[in-house]
């Protein structure tokens, strides 16, 4: 199970990083979201994987580690706020700059190829 979990974290990270490196804002936002899934899963697993452990006191003797859970819970909410902020920033950038490239201007190579096509 641990290996499977680690593979999932790796795939999420890889997919997130690849999208993070794209040149337009929206794929970057999507990549950021994927990456934060990966990071949240990773942080969560720092309490190690607990199969059918008790989530609250008194429901069993074997307890899951509550500390990473509390950290990840706030991370999820803050992650939402960050995604929202970045996506609105992207909108604002497109509104003010006229394009949705991450550098705020479309590289000349791209303009050339667009003209040719």
């Amino acid at each position: 199970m641990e290996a499977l979990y680690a593979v999932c974290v790796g795939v999420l990270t890889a997919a997130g990083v690849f999208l993070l490196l794209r040149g337009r804002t929206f794929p970057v936002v999507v990549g950021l979201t994927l990456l934060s899934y990966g990071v949240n899963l990773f942080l969560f697993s720092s309490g190690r994987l607990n199969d059918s452990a008790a989530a609250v006191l008194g429901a069993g003797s074997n307890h899951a580690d509550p500390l990473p859970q509390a950290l990840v819970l706030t991370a999820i909410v803050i992650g939402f706020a960050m995604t929202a902020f970045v996506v609105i920033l992207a909108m604002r950038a497109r509104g003010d700059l006229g394009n949705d490239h991450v550098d705020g201007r479309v590289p000349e190579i791209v303009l050339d190829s667009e003209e040719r096509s």
Partner: protein
Amino acid sequence: MILMWIPLLPLLGALVPILASGLGRTACAWATAVLPALALLLTLSLIPQLEGSNSIQAQLEWLPALGLNISFRFDGLALLFSILILGIGLLVILYARYYLSAQDSMARLYAYLMLFMTAMLGIVLSGNLLQLWMFWELTSISSFLLIGYWWHKSEARRGARMAVTVTGAGGLALLGGILLLGKITGSYELDVILASGDLIRAHAWYPVTLVLVLLGVFTKSAQFPFHFWLPHAMAAPTPVSAYLHSATMVKAGLFLLARLYPALSGTDLWFALVSLTGLTTMLVGAYFALFKHDLKGLLAYSTVSHLGLITMLFGLGTKLGAVAAVFHIINHATFKASLFMAAGIIDHECGTRDMRRINGMWKYMPYTAALAMVAALAMAGVPLMNGFLSKEMFFAETLQQDFLGSLSWIIPVLATLAGIFSVAYSTRFIHDVFFNGEPINLPRTPHEPPRYMKVPVEILVALCLLVGIFPSLVVGPLLALASSAVLGGALPEYSLAIWHGINTPLIMSLVAMCGGLLVYFNRRNIYAFQKQFPEFNANEAFERLVRRLVAAASWLLEWLDNGSLQRYLVLMLLLWVLLAGQSMLDLVSLTGSRPQLPLDGVAVAMALLLCIGAVATVIYNRNRVVALLMLSVVGLVVSLVFARFSAPDLALTQLVVEVVTLILLMLALFFLPQRTPRESRPSHILRDLSLSIMIGGLMGSISYAMLTRSFNPISDFFLQNSKTGGGGDNVVNVILVDFRGFDTLGEITVLGIAALGIYNLLAGLRLFMPSGDADGRSWARDRYPLVLATISQSVLPLALLVSAFIFLRGHNMPGGGFIAGLVTAVALILQYMAQGVDWMKARVRVTYPRLIGCGVLLSTLTGAASWLFGRPFLTSWFGHFELPLVGEFELASAMAFDLGVYMTVVGSTLLILANLGQMTTSERPVTKEQD
């Protein structure tokens, strides 16, 4: 406390010339001189308290927590230098009064001079090395201002820039050395460092420390190969040259050498670096001085040579060597200052400094000529002059050393050779300028300068003679005080007498004098020889170097900072791969010893779904709606993962956040292009792909390595105290609202700030309005479908009830303010979608920014309430109560805190989504169907 006034008075004195500049030139000069004179009197008044190698201290606490104090320390060496700085400074002030022409701003020169004087005094009086360094840098800056005084001349600007670059770079190296010294000894206080010489010399960092300190010293004191800035600094007005290059600026390096002598000297490395550098500098300076036709250029190279001599004496590491070095510092300061002043007079009277044109001045200004000739003889080291005495001591010391084994005789021979050139250029100074026929084509007819312009020269020349004839009477006590401060203890036996009998040093002196005359009278041959070499222009070489450095720096900057975010990310991620990969290489085996959970079919299926979702998001990323749908598949699986591994709180949160995120991104897509253009070059795709696979692989490995290893969690504390201390069974929630409540307060504040930031970003946004989707289909005509409106209305109370339930049970069962807030937000968003923003606006009277504010305030006040009971911030309280019908229930102050969290989450989420949604409705273009 008197001590602090010595540097403080000249600092105040910097204001005097500016205030007094309206009173006339003479009055301005006198007014400026008052404060330094006072400082000199203060310095002299401290002499009776000095005895042997003891010191007077004065300290002011500055940053006691860092061990930094404003600390002044006064001993024999500081006394000697203070006298030189203040005494020669006063003479320079007098001299400059007559030197400057009416067009030059006197106040500006005097103000700079005073600043420079303060900085120099700060160096010699500092009791703390960091403080010393600060003053050291101040001398670099104020000398920059002084050298560039005639800023309209390009050579002045260049010379100033070169000086500040070289000495500034050395200053940085010195700072490194000082920081290392501080690390080694544990203190920056001079007393501690001087007392721990053995510790420093035995330390592994000693070579690095020594090299760094010496870099600072050598650049400041113009030692080879950093000597080139000094001749170019001659573009300064002559009073400035007289001050900077005799008693102050360049002596600062020697001062530091003397100051740190007890801490750093005495090793082979010290000898090799210091004395060999000094020897080279002495030879190079003496040789090139002979070829300079510029009067000041000759003096500049002679200064370089004499600085080399003093450096070499320190480098020999013998006690007598240090005494001779201190003695020569005094002598050089007196004769070189007077020579510069004489050169200034000649320049002033002739309008040129070219020695090929200035000849026969004896006829025109015999009095000045006599003074200059005495000083030049002192420079050459002729008996009855002060220069002779210290040079004899120098020759004697070169005979004593045996560092080069059987080849040690080379050093006295080379020293004599330098002496020969020294005599030769001194002879040239005397013979070329004052005799040697008639002046050639001078701009004006020279005559004696004003009376008072000669006074400073007279005083200095008189000192040269007095010291030369009655050494032990005139300078003996001062030399003894200063030398014992340098050596930090007992003085060696030495005698300051003119006549020691016929011995080797005397013979060396005689050889130098005869050889020097011989060289001078055969100078045409040597000039012809030297002419065969291309002339090396240090200025041009330096400018070329600077230009190349700037070009290299801007190339590097453009390569790194090319304005491409993708490039920055690639570089940063690569760095991460290197760092993380490095530490993973150190790990012996990836799998740890912790027992692993067995696989099951559901888990494999879910993992497959997650991976397919993630990969599909990447593959379809150019079609943005599809990518978004794939993304939400991943999000849902992630929430299932949380549920599977015993984290119901996380599963709930993730689920609701997923909904909210999807709505947000859908709304955003309305304003962003629906498709991503195909624009990445294949090579970039390959680069990104391999980088992301590397990072994914690394993250997976780290994750696996972590999961298979056991650890000692700190969570037992939370598990044990959650019920008794926080009154709740749901430990996650108790951590959020109680144990780590302060963190949560920070979190919701950040959330609120992000929402308000978004609110402001949306204000005044110009948008591109698409009239249909990517395939050209226009938007649906039916804005608010009846079915959705009806169902959502009936769902709303239910959803709010669920939200209240989740909120209330949060302390003991999975749930809490975060989740409840998100559920409420989703329920309300549904209403917005079904009924439209305007419809909702008429019914919901809450302004969301205010809701956020109230939420944060409520949480903060709940925390602050515990102050009323004399407890720390955010101490929670709880109790159990009995109500008829309902039964026992629990009330905790954490509930109020959680309510604040709830309000902030609801307010933030709705502020973001409702505002964004409103734009889609208010700005939506009218479609054809509606016409």
